[in-house]
């Protein structure tokens, strides 16, 4: 008797768990579905009262309109290059520094690591005005360099990879050293290849945050052809403030590359970003 009541309460629990999760998943996914459906509607169709859910036909007119109003090829290229250079810089410089802070002895280590911690604890906006002035002074506004500029070094990357290197047993490095490797070779040939998972996590983290960043690209690159997908969308918002089908098409175009990468590398994305969590 008792057993069967326990079992039925267990079933109820399972049903409730699924009910909540499915409801939650619907709330998460429906805005995206609505975005896709709207992107295939005409303006009068999208403004129907009562609302019609499905578009009358699948059409790409709104995407054509969005591409005409925004130089999407440039936006993809600018965003891609910004992400590429930021990732390369973050991985290269942070690996080197992270290794040195974790495994090497040198004078001033504490002080220098303090600089890393200071940067990490300050919000990026506190650097923006002087950074912008530097870029302007160099005459580098409206360039790819300007987009990459604040991301040339990554204090977070140093901190994160230092943790990783600290987790690698010292004996591995010592063995390589005894085999005749110098410090650089030990790092480059032996230690760095062991940090694949962390480097992948840092890559994804850097890419997603660079891609989402809005204030810096808006400030530094005002030329439409030099904007990123995010700042370009902000411009499109002003241009088509009431034409939601075109805005939805533009947003979909901007989201597509990252979402496709995400769906392919779900595990790496979720676990990578979660492992960098806290920033």
């Amino acid at each position, binding site marked *: 008797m008792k057993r069967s009541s326990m079992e039925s309460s267990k079933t109820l629990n399972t049903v409730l768990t699924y009910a909540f999760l499915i409801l939650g998943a619907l709330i998460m996914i429906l805005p995206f579905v609505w975005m896709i459906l*709207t992107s295939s509607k005409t303006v009068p169709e999208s403004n129907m009262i009562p*609302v019609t859910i499905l578009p009358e036909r699948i059409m790409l007119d709104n995407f054509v309109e969005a591409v005409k109003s925004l130089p999407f090829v440039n936006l993809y290229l600018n965003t891609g290059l910004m992400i590429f250079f930021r990732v390369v810089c973050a991985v290269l410089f942070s690996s080197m520094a992270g290794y040195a802070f974790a495994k090497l002895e040198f004078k001033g280590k504490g002080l220098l690591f303090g600089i890393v911690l200071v940067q990490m604890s300050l919000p990026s*906006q506190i*650097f923006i005005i002087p950074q912008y002035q530097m870029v302007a002074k160099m005459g580098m506004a409206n360039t790819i360099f300007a987009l990459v500029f604040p991301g040339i070094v990554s204090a977070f990357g140093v901190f994160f990879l230092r943790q990783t290197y600290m987790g690698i047993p010292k004996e591995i490095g010592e063995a390589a050293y005894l085999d005749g490797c110098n410090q650089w070779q030990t790092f480059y040939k032996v230690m760095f290849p062991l940090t694949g998972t962390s480097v992948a996590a840092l890559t994804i983290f850097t890419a997603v945050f660079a891609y989402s960043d809005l204030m810096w690209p808006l400030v530094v690159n005002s030329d439409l052809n030099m904007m990123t997908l995010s700042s370009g969308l902000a411009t499109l918002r002003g241009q088509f403030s009431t034409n939601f089908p075109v*805005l939805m098409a533009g947003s979909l175009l901007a*989201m597509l590359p990252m979402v496709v990468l995400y769906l392919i590398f779900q595990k790496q994305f979720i676990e990578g970003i979660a492992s960098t969590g806290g920033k």
Partner: protein
Amino acid sequence: MKKNKLSPAARREQNWAYIMVGPTIIGLLVLNIWPFIQTIYTSFCEHLGFGRYKFIGLANYVEMFQTPEFWKATWNTILFCILTVPLGLFLSLLVAMLLNAKIKFKGGFRTIFFLPMVCAPAAVTMVWRWIFNADYGILNQIFGTDIKWITDPNVVMLSCAIVAIWSNIGYDAVLLLAGLQNIPKTLYEANSIDGAGKVKQFFTITLPMVSPTLFVVMIMRLMASVKVYDLIYMMVEETNPAVTSVQSLMYLFYRESFVAGSRGMGSAIVIWTVLLIGLVTVIQFYGQKKWVNYDV
């Protein structure tokens, strides 16, 4: 003299270390430390245009503290945190606990909840503007309401809070899920022999055990919320009459520094925000002693 004490091998190690941290340290000094000092200095200056400044002492701060828009932005920022952080954390913990149960399609659910994280805020807020649209938006149509979600000064903050919670739930849930998975199963087994109910189990086992993770997520979420800018900027453009009812400190910073061009005032606002973040952090670290459990 001291240098001579180092063995040649130790000296070589030290030289390599300097070469390896060199790019990072130079970069941080140029890109962050020097700008940080400059921003502090600029907050005591008036911007004369073309990057020239005149020292004016505390005038920016005096003016800032006398501006109602500034206090409104400060309150908006605090209100945004109050509206989004507790409820967002509660829902994230709920989702994390549901995902931690023995269920099918766990990975699929996780992927869906996490999806907003990889979409630029600029893109996702666009569809929310459409959903919230007062005339043709689907939300008003479904509920038969006539709420001006984005232009009514009394409602617009709520709309932004909804979008913020929706955007961050998956990320926070994934972090919390990692914390939940570290709780040894044996704790629950021992407890269920006692015949403890699910609710009691939550308060005696789950919450204390996950509290360190919850604390980290809360700190991170609070800091991000104090710095909120992009979401509100995309939801509420500068020409929207409701903008003062929702603009955060960082939104005001952006407008002062880069639209109005008063970089001295902009710097003062950002310094104020940093102090606010510092204050919030200190309060949290004192508060954690009351509820975060590091014993187990």
